[in-house]
């Protein structure tokens, strides 16, 4: 899978997040402290929409039950989630955000 251009950096505040569609999947782009990260818009606890959650430093909390994930790695940090959500590769070139989806 190749990198795909999915959004413009100037459209994404810091800190901020947006949900984009890439190859029939929903991915949250997150911008924190000058860096951009991409994880699946899926809480591994019950499939909740992570992208609507509260962002704090490098963690995002699922709006349904509060499970926290590391936006850099997708790692599940707190209950009730026990499994990581998928993280994807990101690169920024100029104003373009590129993502390579990992399966």
């Amino acid at each position, binding site marked *: 899978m190749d990198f795909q251009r999915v959004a413009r950096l100037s459209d994404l505040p810091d800190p901020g997040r947006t949900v984009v569609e890439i190859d*029939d999947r*929903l991915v949250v782009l997150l911008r924190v402290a000058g860096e951009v990260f991409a994880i699946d818009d899926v809480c591994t606890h019950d*499939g909740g929409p992570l992208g609507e959650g509260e962002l704090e430093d490098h963690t995002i909390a699922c709006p349904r039950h509060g499970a926290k994930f590391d936006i850099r790695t997708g790692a599940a940090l707190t209950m009730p989630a026990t499994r990581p959500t998928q993280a994807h590769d990101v690169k920024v070139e100029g104003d373009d955000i590129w993502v390579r989806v990992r399966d």
Partner: protein
Amino acid sequence: MTEMTLASGFTSDAFAAFLAARQEPLWLTELRRAAWEAFEKMELPSRREEEWMRTDIRLFKLDRFGLPGETLPGLTAPPALLTEGVDLAGRTASLNSRPGGFSSEGVPPGVLFGNLEEMVAEHGDLLRPHLFQIVNPQADKFAALHAACWSGGVLVYVPRGVRVEKPFHMLSGLAGGGVDLSHALIVLEEGAEATVLAETAGDDQPSLHCGAIEIVVGAGAKLRYVNLQNWGSGTWHFAHQRAVVERDGALQWTIGALGGRLAKVNQHVALVGDGADTQVNGVMFTEGKQHLSYHTLQHHQAAHCRSDLLYKGALQDHSQLVWRGMIKVDPGAQKTNGYQRNDNLILTETARADSIPGLEIEADDVICTHGATAGRVDDQQIFYARCRGLTRNEAVRMIVAGFFQQVFDRITIESVREALGHAIGRRIREYD
């Protein structure tokens, strides 16, 4: 690949043109208009609603589809699975909501069987008490879209006391990115008996089925109904299905769910007369990124009724199954015997099954039981089988077959057991 069906979009102009081209009883036109108004007002369901929490349809784009147009030549319906070796009373086939084959040699006199659109033009008064009286045409945006724009579909109407030995068969096909808005209406009058086999099939293009099934089992009537959802991997499937069973009526309803990209189905049974009996069987097998979501309701509205639901699902790859079941017992529905069970066998770690059984009981002399299990293939069973000389792969197949046997034992139609067994056997991956 270019889209081969001419889609006009679900616009008010397209709907007006669709209505103008039809010659239907006034009551039906009015029903369609009311549903269209509801459709225009309603939003697509959101994940904030309990029923849609686990089913993400943000990737579904309604505006990519439209009212079924003229199907271009060259498209053919995929083959049926359930009719192997079966002597049928009659059969219908459709492709992208358009009629595509019909025969009725074995249909006894007095029984109405055929294209619902044509039947409603001829027998409007007979069908009016049933059509869109069983399912709610405005339950959600999909239900409203279906009620406004349905076309094609099938009617099986068995009059009082008539027993039809041979099964009816109906096949709905989707090809070339088409849309299927077909409606099924099955009515058995008092003491009638029938067997109906319905199935779907399709190619892997993005396509839409937005449908409804309405079933009336009259007093003392007996219906065996099989509904196999076997769309291709690109199909979005939204359906409201509901049966009403009257006094001492018996319904055996078997659902097979193998296909589709995403399915959201409401399967409801209402036991409205004393002594009504219903058995619901579900066989699900999912793979790839399929997401199938089934919402069942066993609604006991009368006394001395029995309902027995067993759904069994096996999942592989990244697929997901959701089952949310409810037994609802109204005040006065005493001596209810209600049972619901859902078992899931998870073949790969990345698959996911959600089982949510529920009871809502307002009578005080009932037996209601529910249960759900989810588990992986047991390593000890694999070990045992391998000690006996089987490969791991053979062992997994045997365990999957054994898992489904319990529900196959309940399905009384041999061709259905065989078709489901073979279809599942073909899908199981090599787990070496």
